[in-house]
């Protein structure tokens, strides 16, 4: 019983914080004031590093802005504490204000970046520029006019004589402050640990692994990123406030370039993906810097630069993940397990009685007069097409006919230059991808788009959790995986699946998403004869409840589906008909065989 509780807590990352709190309450009586001061500082830095681990290691957004939010938190604490402490006798409100101020700045910056869809490298540059410009701005606030309430911003010299953490009119002494910061750190660690280990953790991992797939499943990637960015900024803000309270002082150096580098170094050294790594990284790097300072004084940037170079060039994984791998090698039981005695994937394809308990409404999709131009090139020209009258529709056409572009217009990955698109009789022409997905439009892309770094089971769980407008029933993870015969590999990392299996996994994501309309872009590409046969079987099964549109080159596959065919050529509809009609057509044959059409 007791061990079960401990194990459950360990799984959700709650064990360390409890130990830390215990330590924080016992330790102060044993250590010196100087030790407590140093450790408090490291904990403040640890919270800052934790915020970068959350946004970068977990959600995959590299931000150089964490120390900007740390600095904003520090300044906000300073301003709030100087203004309120004399009257209220406490500075806990200032701590809260600091978190809010950092979150507010992050929300504004994040809105611009994520809703502007700034790419990852640009994001690093924009956040760094933000930090550097704050440095310059805060350095030039020396005049008496730069005052908030009674607090002078003080320009380059910063703001001295701040109140420390205080409750009931008295400030905490050094050791009490250490205990307070340790408890705060533990609480924040627990919060982050809880967040990243449950289903939110899986959503964040999906964000890190494959944004496009998340969007096509119906997740609002922009909003998710904005939320996690803002939350991590609030964390950094608390770290900064505690830092200001620790030193009773803040100056623009918190926004400087070496400080920005330092945060990245801590996280790199500790290990990007590990929460504990944040604190381990701070401890290691600060210890090395202290030792180095004793040998060659005043060379901190040099030491930091060399550490960063070594870590990037030689140990890109960091300390904690390296140790974990070592540990796993010693004790292989901790390695990811595979279900024993399971049959290999290709042995059989078991079809469960029903893939979903209630049939979803068959979707209809209509493109009217749509066109797409890239610069001067017209890829699609005034194309009108309707689907939903039959369970399966097929599109064929030579390369460059505009098939994939048409799919991208339908799912919203590209915006149409002209025309309108209707899904289930409502216009979706201007809706973003995720909104179309939520209404029940799913797509399997040509190149398998799954979450490569996650297990098969996690892949399907993320798809199941995707937000949808109609609350139709969801198939269980087992049913979905059984349908594509991937049940035996449920614990396998998707990257280790064969190409054909990855195609199947993506189809599984579609089944879990349960859209009323399913688009398949060359589902049989790279499959063996046998796999192709099974895919036909699966598509037919799915077409009992969903409308299916398939783009395919493989004529045997098309024939086996036995559905009405539309042939695209040079951005327009060239022929419609059954397989036999099209294959008998001389013009169609000429185009597919690359001969010039008879005039």
């Amino acid at each position, binding site marked *: 019983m007791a061990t079960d509780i401990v194990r459950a807590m360990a799984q959700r990352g709650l064990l360390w914080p409890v130990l830390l709190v215990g330590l924080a309450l016992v330790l102060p009586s044993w250590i010196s004031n100087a030790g407590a001061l140093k450790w408090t500082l490291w904990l403040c830095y640890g919270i800052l590093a934790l915020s970068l681990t959350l946004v970068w290691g977990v959600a995959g957004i590299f931000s150089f802005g964490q120390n900007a939010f740390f600095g904003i938190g520090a300044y906000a604490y300073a301003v709030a504490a100087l203004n309120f402490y004399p009257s209220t006798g406490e500075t806990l409100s200032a701590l809260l204000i600091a978190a809010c101020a950092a979150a507010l700045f992050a929300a504004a910056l994040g809105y611009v970046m994520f809703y502007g869809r700034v790419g990852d*490298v640009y994001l690093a540059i924009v956040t760094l520029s933000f930090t550097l410009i704050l440095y310059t701005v805060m350095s030039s606030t020396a005049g008496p006019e730069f005052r908030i309430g009674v607090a002078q911003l003080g320009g380059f010299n910063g703001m001295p004589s701040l109140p420390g953490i205080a409750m009931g009119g008295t400030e905490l002494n050094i050791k009490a402050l250490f205990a307070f910061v340790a408890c705060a750190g533990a609480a924040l660690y627990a919060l982050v640990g809880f967040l990243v280990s449950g289903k939110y953790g899986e959503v964040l991992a999906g964000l890190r692994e494959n944004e496009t797939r998340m969007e096509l499943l119906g997740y609002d990637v922009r909003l998710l990123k904005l939320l996690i960015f803002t939350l991590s900024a609030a964390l950094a803000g608390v770290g900064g406030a505690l830092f200001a309270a620790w030193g009773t002082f803040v100056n623009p150096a918190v926004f400087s370039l070496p400080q920005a580098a330092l945060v990245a170094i801590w996280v790199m050294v500790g290990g990007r993906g590990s929460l504990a790594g944040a604190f381990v990284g701070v401890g290691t790097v600060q210890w090395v810097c202290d030792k180095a300072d004793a040998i060659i004084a005043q*060379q901190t*940037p040099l030491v930091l*630069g060399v550490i*960063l*170079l070594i870590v990037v*060039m030689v140990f890109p994984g960091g300390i904690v993940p390296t140790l974990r791998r070592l540990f796993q090698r010693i004790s292989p039981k901790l390695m990811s397990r595979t279900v024993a005695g399971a049959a290999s994937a290709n042995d059989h394809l078991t079809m469960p009685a029903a893939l979903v308990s209630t049939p979803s409404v068959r979707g209809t999709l209509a493109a009217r007069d749509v066109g797409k131009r890239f610069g001067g090139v017209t890829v699609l020209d005034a194309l009108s097409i309707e689907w939903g009258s039959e369970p399966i529709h097929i599109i064929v056409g030579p390369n460059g006919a505009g098939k994939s572009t048409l799919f991208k217009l339908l799912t919203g990955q590209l915006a149409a230059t002209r025309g309108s698109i209707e899904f289930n009789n409502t216009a979706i022409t201007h809706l973003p991808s995720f909104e179309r997905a939520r209404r029940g439009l799913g797509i399997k892309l040509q190149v398998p788009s799954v979450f490569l770094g996650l297990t098969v089971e996690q892949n399907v769980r993320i798809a199941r959790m995707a937000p949808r407008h109609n609350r139709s029933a969801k198939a269980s993870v087992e049913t979905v995986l059984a349908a594509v015969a991937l049940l035996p590999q449920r614990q396998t990392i998707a990257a280790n699946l064969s190409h054909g299996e990855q195609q199947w996994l993506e189809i599984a994501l579609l089944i879990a998403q349960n859209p009323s309309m399913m688009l398949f872009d060359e589902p049989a590409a790279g499959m063996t004869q046998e796999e192709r046969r099974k895919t036909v079987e699966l598509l037919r099964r799915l077409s009992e409840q969903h409308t299916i549109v398939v783009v395919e080159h493989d004529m045997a596959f098309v024939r086996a589906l036995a559905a009405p065919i539309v042939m695209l050529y040079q951005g327009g509809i060239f022929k419609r008909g059954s397989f036999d009609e099209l294959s008998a057509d001389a013009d169609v044959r000429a185009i597919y065989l690359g001969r010039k059409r008879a005039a």
Partner: protein
Amino acid sequence: MDTAVVVILSALTSIAILLLTSLGLAVVFGLMRIVNMAHGEFLMIGAFATTTLVRSGAMPLWMAVLSAAAFCALIGVVVEVAFIRPLHGRRLIDTLLATFGLSLVMYQIAVDIFGTASPGIDAPPGWLQLGRYSVSYYSLALPFIAVVVTLLLYLLFKSTRYGLLARAAAQDAEMASALGVEVRRVNLYTFVLGCALAGLGGALLSPVVAVSPGVGQSYIGQAFMTVVTGGPAFLLGTLSASALLGGVANVISQFSTNMWGLTGLLLVAAVLVRVLPRGLSGNWSRQL
């Protein structure tokens, strides 16, 4: 009237400075997708090389400027071979962090050699008298130099063999190397060109700013914003972004303080990024 002319001339000078400090970054990022975090330190090295050469009396300013650029190119060779090349194929963040580490090392070495403040050099003498105002010839010359440098780069990428190969490697490195382009060598040239441009920018700046080891860091934030808002056409995009951001920042600073000028630059850049996520040149059909 005089005031208007002086305001415009001053804005042109800031635009030129922004352009000269951004071009190297833009070339390396535009063609190699590498964020050279040590760009600011290359600016700083160019500036220190110039002041050192001029103060020692070894050569006149123009020769010192060219030598500084050449010196930065040499350092660029070493950096590319030792740090950029081994990271080829890794995530973009890795080269960014590696060059960041390098920038810290270079900064500290400069502090150890030159101290935190150092004597500067004078701009070439001569003033243009405009009513109550006087404008130095040197600050008038900077816009011309900036335009000439941009033009030369345009010609380099438009009509030389290297330029064509570099653009090909940037578009599709794998295809380019399949067609026989030695991408490694092209990338080396591109990186070195970027470093030389940074050195040139720093050298040209040295007579008009206080040269210190931190001088690069005070320009790099703006340079980054310029490259981001410039977008994929790395020459003309950067030119237009410099004109816009530099113009706005300078005019605001002239009527209030430097702080509001920088804040204005940040806000304009933020609005631009929101409205045109791919930068000013995002929808242009040109590549340069």
